């Protein structure tokens, strides 16, 4: 079906950029500044949603903005995969923008205008990546995300902040220059274009006579070049990026940034190489083994972390690889499961990070060992935390179960006991590092220094944080019980 040409596909990218400009202009009046940020988030979500009905009824939207060189252009295209990512990210931005107010004011953070500006631009660039119609556009927005999240990571401007941010930018810039740039050049040389093949997930854009060796090199460069996806061994930037304020870790390092990486890999696998080519060259299974290693190793490292955010970071590394694993298995069930996990993981992980930030603001605690008995003083927060961790483990009826179910179906489709075992073992490991946190919070003994009693959730600023995390926690359950919304969207793409 021919896509409908409309400039509406630009809105989701433009609105956050305009929001950033307005936030900068109104930096002197915090209330106005934060209202603009919130309104911008709502409008961005609406801009995505007005296109949703068309995509859900099997259509697509496109716009070729400008052509740089034959086959290289800045073009936008919205298909089901883009819709899932853009819809999830823009919806969560609304909640995150409320949460930010509580967090940033609660801690009296400095340079808040810079924070909100970079935050909005990063989300806008992620929208651009979701709407990309070709590898150049994707690369463009991918790089903008890298640059504008850099000031957010080093927000505190202390030693840790600088070091984390330096590592962050070195990993991301090195991989994109060293791998994505040659990958684009090779792909263009082989095909004469960088445009995605949006008509299906099997064909790809490579002509049959293309040199197999070069195709494989280009694929590997893409797989590891999108280092935002945190595939080992290029995952190390992510735990260090946790020095950022928690709203950054929550929206950007659980949803936007890392999902841009994973989304890019999925997009490249499905729309650039196509599952036929990945199958023939054996790259599908190769990828599956690489990410299986990441899933298990990152989970084991997560077990050893005592800082809550660090544990969540390694959990993110591991969960992101589920998404890539699903696509790498190349069967309809598995691809569905993988893509579904983009949304499912987003809702659950942002809840967990929101909780971590809320705990820090309300009680000043960062380390899991200090959280004994905290559940009784922050019942809503810890309840949401418990729900979201069930999703991570993959317990029904929370959403994580649905994606893992499809992944397991996919593993059985290809008859791989190994991958099935990876899924099971990793779920056990997930349980191993999430259950103790909830358990400790409700049944652990408080530290001797914890003298206070009573709820910590009643202060107005904390409440601004509790409400968003409660909403995301509940949605995590709802999309587990009624997964059809995302499932049907993805099935339009996978076609099963």
């Amino acid at each position, binding site marked *: 079906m021919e896509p409908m040409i409309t400039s509406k596909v630009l809105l989701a990218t433009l609105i956050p950029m305009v929001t950033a400009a307005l936030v900068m202009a109104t930096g002197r009046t915090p209330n106005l500044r934060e209202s603009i940020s919130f309104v911008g988030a709502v409008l961005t979500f609406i801009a995505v949603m007005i296109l949703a009905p068309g995509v859900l009824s099997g259509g697509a939207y496109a716009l070729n903005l400008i052509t*740089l060189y034959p086959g290289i252009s800045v073009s936008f295209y919205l298909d089901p995969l883009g819709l899932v990512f853009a819809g999830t990210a823009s919806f969560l931005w609304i909640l995150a923008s409320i949460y930010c107010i509580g967090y940033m004011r609660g801690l009296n953070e*400095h340079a808040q205008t810079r924070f909100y500006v970079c935050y909005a631009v990063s989300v806008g660039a992620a929208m651009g990546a979701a709407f990309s119609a070709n590898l150049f556009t994707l*690369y463009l927005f991918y790089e903008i995300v890298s640059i504008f999240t850099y000031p957010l990571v080093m927000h505190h401007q202390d*030693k840790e*902040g600088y070091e984390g941010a330096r590592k962050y930018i070195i990993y991301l*810039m090195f991989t994109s220059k060293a791998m994505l740039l*040659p990958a684009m050049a090779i792909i263009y*040389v082989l095909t004469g274009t960088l445009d995605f093949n949006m008509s299906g997930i099997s064909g790809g854009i490579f002509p049959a006579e293309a040199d197999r060796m070069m195709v494989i090199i280009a694929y590997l460069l893409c797989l590891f070049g999108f280092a935002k996806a945190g595939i080992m061994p290029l995952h190390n930037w992510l735990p260090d990026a946790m020095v950022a304020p928690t709203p950054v870790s929550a929206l950007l390092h659980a949803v936007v940034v890392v999902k841009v990486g994973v989304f890019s890999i999925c997009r490249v696998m499905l729309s650039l190489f196509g599952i036929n080519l990945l199958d023939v060259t054996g790259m599908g299974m190769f990828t599956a083994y690489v990410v299986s290693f990441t899933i298990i190793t990152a989970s084991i490292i997560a077990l050893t972390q005592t800082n809550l955010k660090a544990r969540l970071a390694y959990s993110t590394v591991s969960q992101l690889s589920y998404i890539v694993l699903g696509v790498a298995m190349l069967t309809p069930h598995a691809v569905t499961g993988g893509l579904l996990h983009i949304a499912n993981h987003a809702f659950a992980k942002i809840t967990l990070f929101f909780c971590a930030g809320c705990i820090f603001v309300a009680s000043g605690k960062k380390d899991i060992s200090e959280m004994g008995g905290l559940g009784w003083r922050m019942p809503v927060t810890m309840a949401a935390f418990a729900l979201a961790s069930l999703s991570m483990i993959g317990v029904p009826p929370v959403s994580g179960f649905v994606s893992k179910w499809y992944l397991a179906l996919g593993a059985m489709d290809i008859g791989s006991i190994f991958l099935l075992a990876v899924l099971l073992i990793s779920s056990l490991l997930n349980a191993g590092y999430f259950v103790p946190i909830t358990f400790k919070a409700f049944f652990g003994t408080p530290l001797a220094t914890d003298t206070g009693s009573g709820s910590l959730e009643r202060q107005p600023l904390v409440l601004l944080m509790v409400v968003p995390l409660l909403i995301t926690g509940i949605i995590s359950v709802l999309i587990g019980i009624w997964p059809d919304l995302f499932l049907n969207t993805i099935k339009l793409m996978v076609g099963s």
Partner: protein
Amino acid sequence: MEQYLIFNQLNYPIISVVLLLPLIGAVLGLLFKSDKAQLWWGLGVTVATALASLPLYTRFDRTTALYQFVEVRHWLPALGLDYAVGVDGISVLLVLLTTLVMPLCVLCSWSYIKERMREFIFVLLVIETAMIGVFVSLNTLLFFLFWEAMLIPMYLMIAIWGGPRKDYASIKYFLYTFAGSIFFLVAIIALYVQTGSFFIPELMTHSFSFSFQIWIFLGCALAFAVKVPMFPLHTWLPAAHVEAPTAGSVILASIMLKLGGYGFLRFCLPMAPEATWYFMPWLIALSLVSIIVGGYLALGQSDIKKLIAYSSVGHMGFVTLGIFLLNDQGLKGAMLQMINHGVTTGALFILIGIIYERTHSREMSVNRALGAMMPVYVLFLGIFSLSSFGFPGTNSFVSEFLVLLAAFSKYPLVGALAIVGAILAAAYMLRLLQSMVWADSDGHGHHDDGDDHGHGAGHGHLLKDLNAREIGTLSFLTIFVFWIGFYPAPLLEVMDVSVTQLIDQIGNGLPPGGDDNLHQALTGWGNKMTGLFTPLRP
């Protein structure tokens, strides 16, 4: 003669106007006494020249590879020295680059130059005429005349208005360039002896014997390789850049280095095509070395100006790499890279001049943590730094990517090595940005003063952000960063036909050896070298 030319499509001699305006302006400018009047005069003349040159772009015929806006007058028939000027798709953009950058050179000298203003404006305007002259000359002697005419004023600019080591730098600049141009002069004379003509379009289509081509190529290439500069002839550049005043650095980086690239395209490729194919592997190798060594040395600099100077070596390496890949994308990429380097590196030198005026230092350790004090400055620094390392959406990305495409389509290994340069560029520019924009991790960091400033480092709050003149200068260049970054088509269109014609001229490979002794002796080496690359063909 007519077969090479389209005579002037305008009813006035536009090239002479553009060429002579600055020269006349320079002479008349000597009448003004006050410094301010000098500056305004200089600005007026350069802007007038820029405006006068615009029809070269708007009225340029994009469908022909012939020379346009041509004027031919016999000047010294005894010597064969004609006044023959004209532009084609290869030179027209460089002429425009020159005329558009020169007003910025006046603007960035506004408060930088404190002494001998009259002489300064005079020298600046003479340089402009000489540079335009090189690009528009259709006569080898005239070309050489302008080429040499550039040397003295540039020498004076470094020697009079330069920094502490100006004597060393200016002499080094002079000796390197002069040594190169002697060989070039020999090549010109040899060409004349062989053909009896100084007329460039005629020489371009003449076919010479292989051994003659080899010598011509070497003579010309030496002069141009010094100018570009190509490793290992690059050492004059950092010295000259560091000591030159801002305007001098901008002229050097934005325009003079391009003369080298232009020379390769105008002389070496069309006049000695077989020799070009023969030397191609060597020049590709040298370009790669320039890219990597330039980037590597830039990484180690603490003097900001030196860092940008070494980055120029790397960026110009992309130009020569693109030229000697000898295909459509490579040549277009190289030409675009020349324009882009002119815009971006020019702007970076202006930015360094601005900060030098305020802190009187070019050290990274002094000029740091400027983010809170000079947000507008930092914004421009960010834009041009990103542009410098080829961030997508900026001008340099397009040109570097075209060169990479050319490399990967011919020799993937060459592409892979050029990528190393791209990585190094990102590394040193991000290091520069990190240190200039944010405070280092030595204490003055996180304060919760509840507002959005408060990260002033060692300078207190004394540093003033940009004034309107500086913002205007940089904004003008910013337009080109994004214009070329997103919509390079108009520029590519201008060069398209000329590049195609050039590729036709140089053919597609080293022809099998003839009865030429030298040829046979050399092809042995040549084949060995090319043999190294052959298995890498996709």
